[in-house]
C-alpha cells in the first residue's frame, strides 16, 4: 500500500484522440487504457470489458484499421491514430455488410462479444485482402490464404463467444468474405 501512495499521483497528458472520425481533445492519465477511455470518458460503451486482460477479445477495436484489444492498449500512445469502434462501423444509417450479415445469420445470442467479433472481422478481412498469411509452413512459405471456413476460424480465434454462436459467426463472415 505504501508503494501505492507514491505511484498513485497521476501523470496526465493532453492529447487528441480521434475516434470514428471525431477528434476529442482530452487529458488522459498515462495509465489509462483505451477501453476505459472509450467507455468511461467518451460514452462509447460498444467495446466490452469481458476480461480486461486481453483474453476474450470483447474489447477489440481498430487502430488505423488494424485490430487491437483496447484493454491492453494505453490511450496515451494513440495520439493522431485513427480509432474505429463498433459504433463507427456503419456508414451513417447504412450498416456495415458484416453487421447486416451477423443479424441475418443470427451470429449472436447475448451479443456481448459481438462488437469485438465485428471489429475483429473487419480487421481480419483487411489483413486477408493485404495477403497476410495466418500460418507459415515449415519451408518458409505460406498456405493458401483463401478465406474458406477453416481459414476464417483460424483468423477469428482471438474472440471468444460463450453462447457458442460460432457456427453462425463463420457463416456470416464467409458471406461477406465472398
Amino acid at each position, binding site marked *: *500500500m505504501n508503494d*501505492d501512495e507514491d505511484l498513485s499521483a497521476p501523470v496526465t497528458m493532453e492529447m487528441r484522440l480521434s475516434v470514428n472520425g471525431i477528434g476529442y481533445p482530452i487529458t488522459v492519465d498515462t495509465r489509462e487504457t483505451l477501453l476505459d477511455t472509450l*467507455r468511461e470518458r467518451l*460514452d*462509447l*460503451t*460498444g*467495446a*466490452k*470489458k*469481458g*476480461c*480486461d*486482460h486481453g*483474453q*476474450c477479445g470483447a474489447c477489440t477495436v481498430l487502430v488505423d484499421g488494424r485490430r487491437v484489444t483496447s484493454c491492453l492498449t494505453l490511450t496515451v500512445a494513440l495520439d493522431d491514430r485513427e480509432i474505429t*469502434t*463498433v*459504433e463507427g*462501423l*456503419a456508414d451513417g444509417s447504412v*450498416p456495415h455488410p458484416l*453487421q447486416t450479415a*451477423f*443479424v*441475418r445469420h*443470427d451470429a*449472436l*445470442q*447475448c*451479443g*456481448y*462479444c*459481438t*462488437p469485438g467479433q*465485428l471489429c475483429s472481422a473487419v480487421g481480419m478481412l483487411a489483413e486477408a485482402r493485404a495477403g497476410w498469411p*495466418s*500460418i507459415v*509452413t515449415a519451408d518458409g512459405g505460406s*498456405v493458401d490464404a483463401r478465406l474458406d*471456413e*477453416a*481459414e*476464417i*476460424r*483460424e483468423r*477469428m*480465434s*482471438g*474472440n*471468444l*463467444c*460463450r*453462447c*457458442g*454462436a*460460432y*457456427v*453462425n459467426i*463463420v457463416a456470416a463472415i464467409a458471406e461477406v468474405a465472398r
Partner: protein
Amino acid sequence: MTTSKATTSANTFGGIGGNLPRPDGTLKVRGEFAYSSDLWLEDMLWGATLRSPHVRARILGIDLTEAIAMPGVHAVLTHDDVPGEKHYGLDRRDQPVLAVDQVRYQGEAVAIVAADHPETARRAAKAIKVSYEPLPPVVDPAWALDPASPPIHPGGNVVRRQPVRTGVFLDGPGAPPADVVVVGEYEVGMQDQAFLGPESGLAVPAEDGGVDLYIATQWLHVDRDQLAPCLGLPPELVRLTLAGVGGAFGAREDLSMQVHACMLALRTGRPVKIVYDRQESFFGHVHRHPARMRYEHGADADGRLVYVKAEILLDGGAYCSSSLAVVGNAASLGAGPYEVPNIHIDAYGVYTNNPPCGAMRGFGAVQACFGYESQMDRLAAACGLSPVEIRIRNAVSEGSRIATGQLVDTPAPLAEMLAELAAMPMPDLPAERPGPDLRDLPGGVSQTTRGEGVRHGVGYAVGLKNICYSEGFDDYSTARVRVELLGGKPHVLVHTAAAEVGQGLVTVLAQIARTELGVANVTVAPADTRVGSAGSSSASRQSYMTGGAVRAACAAVRDRLAAHGPAESLTEILALTGPIEETREYRHRPTFPMDPFTGQGDSHTQLALCVHRAVVAVDVELGLVKTVELAAVQDVGRILNPIALEGQIHGASAQGLGLALMEEIQMEGGRVLNPSFTDYLIPTILDMPPMRLSILEHPDPHAPYGLRGAGEPATLSSTPAIVAAVRNATGLELPRVPIRPEHIALT
C-alpha cells in the same frame, strides 16, 4: 379473426415458424444495446466487495477505520449493516449477504464499499482489516458424506439424499441375475458458466424510500423476493428492471451483487454501480456441481438392460443454491432414456467448503448423462454390439416409464433419432486429404509434428432432460398483452418479466403474438417487476411458459374482440373500444414430489431428448484433441424459429464440448487456482467444429404449439459423445471430464 386464419398468414406477419431476426439484434451489432455494465448516472458511486482469502475461517474482528477515512469513500458496510434478513438463497436461505461470524469458502463476501471512483472503492476494500482464525476445511465431498465430518451448517453436510428404487430393488440392494455386468466410476469436474458479461448492476435510491435496481439476471421476481427481506423493505418498494444480459447459462439464477448495490445506494442516497471483473466473477457466482459417480449396469446376452445401480455424489460447495433440484434431476434422470426394469440409484448433494455450486445449463442431468452414457458404451463392447444398436435396443419410447415410474406419455422417438443420426454422412477426415495442413491437426498451427500421432474416433451419446421446474414447484409465467391503434394502425404490446439472456425469447414472444392476433406490428416491452413473475430463464422453460402466457393473454384479447362480431375489422373495433389489455398466468401440468424412499412420482412435466455423434482427431503423442464434427438430432415438438433454435443447439453443444475437453475450475484445498480466461479455457471458434443438425417435430400435446424446451438437451449428449469418440480413437478408459492432455499422452 381466428387462430387458424392468423396461423395461415404466419410468415407474412412474422409469426411462429419463421426465421425472424432478433429484434435486439440491430442494437447489438451497432454496439448500442445497453448491458448492465454500460449503465451510467452522473452522480453514481462505484461499489466494491472485500472477499475472504480463506477457505474456512472464523471472523474475529473487522476494522473499517482506515477504509472509511479514505477520501472519496462514502460507505463501508458489513453484516451489521444489513437492514433486514441477513441470509438469502434459492432453495434454502443459508447464504449470508455479508459473512457474519465465519467464512465458508474462498471468495465469500465480507464487506462492501461505495466510493466516487472504482479504483478508490477497490483500494478502500483492500484497506479493511479482517482478523481471521483459519479452520480446517471440508473439501472432499466423500468426507462430507461422513456424519463425523465437521458440519458446515447446522444439520450436517448432506443437503439432500434422493434414492430411486424400482423392481427387485424395492426389496433390497441385491441385484438380479444378468448375463453381462459392467461397472464404472466416473468424475465430472467443476465447470463454470463463464458468461462474457460479468456480474453488474445499478441501484438507484428512490424518493419513496425504496430502490430501483437495473440488473442482469435470469429471474427478476425471485431476485426481488430475496432482496426485499434483506433490505427490510416491502416488495413493492423494490423494483427491478432487466438490464442487458451478457449471457447467463445458470450463473445468474442466484444473487451476486444485488443486495450489496441496494444496501450501498440506500445508505448513501446515491446511485451505486457494481461491476465485477473477470477474476471476481469466478468467485461471484455458483458453478456446475462436480460429480463422482459409480455405475453398475446389468444386461442380458442380447444387451437388454436388466438393472442399473448408481451412486451419484454432487459437491454443492458452501451454500445450498439449487442443490436440492440438482440432486432431484440427477436421481430421476440418472438411468437415462432407457427402459430399465430394476433401478437402484442414490444421489447425494453435500455441503463442502468448496465454491458454492448451483445452476448451470442441464444441471444434474449433465453429470448423470456422462455416467450412464459411458456405461452404455462399455455395455456395447461387452455385448459385441455397436454403440448405436445398444442404445436403440434399450431406448425409451412413448409408453415407457423412466426411473421415477413416470409414464412417458408424449412422443419420445429416441430410436428414430439414433437411426437418423447414424445415417448422417460422415465428414471427410483430414488424414484422407492430401498433405498435412497444420490447421487440420489437433493443436492447430502450434503443432510441432506432421500428424504422425493422429488417430480418429467416432462416438455417440444420448441425453434425457426435464423441461420446466419439477417436483411440485408452482411453476408459472405471466403476460400482459395490449392491443391498440397507434397512428391509426393496430399495434400489440407484450409485457412480461421474462429475462432475455441471449436465447432469443423476445423474438419468439413477438412471433407468438403475431400468430395469435394476426397483427404484424408487435413490440416486446422491457422486462421488469411491474408485471407478474415470468419464472426463471432456466430449465429450457421460457418458450413453453412465457410463450404459453403470451398465447393465453392473446386469446383473452381475441375473445373480447370477437364480442364485436366477425364482420368488423380489427381497426374498426379498436377505434370503438380503445386499447384492449389482458393479463394471464400460465401453468404447465402439475408435477409431484419424488417419494423420499423410492424416488417414485410424476416429478417432471416434460422430457426432452437429444442425440449426438462426435468425430474427433486425437494426437496420442501430444494428448491433443480436435473435434472434427458434431452431428445432432433433437426433437423439439414444434419449431418456433429455426435459426434461433439451431443457435441454441450449437451453443449447448459447444458448452458440452468445453466440459469434455477443457473446462474445469481447478482447486487445491478449496482454493481456486485458475480464475482467469488464461487458465480457465472455454472453446474458441477453432475448437467448435461444423455441425450437422436434424430437428424433429413430434408435438407434445400438453405444451403450447406442441413445443418442447430446447435450450439444454444438447448440453447433455455433446460431452459423452466427444469422450466416446476420444475413447474410440485411443482405446483409453477416460473416466473423467474434462479430458486433459496428460490423460491421453502420459498413459
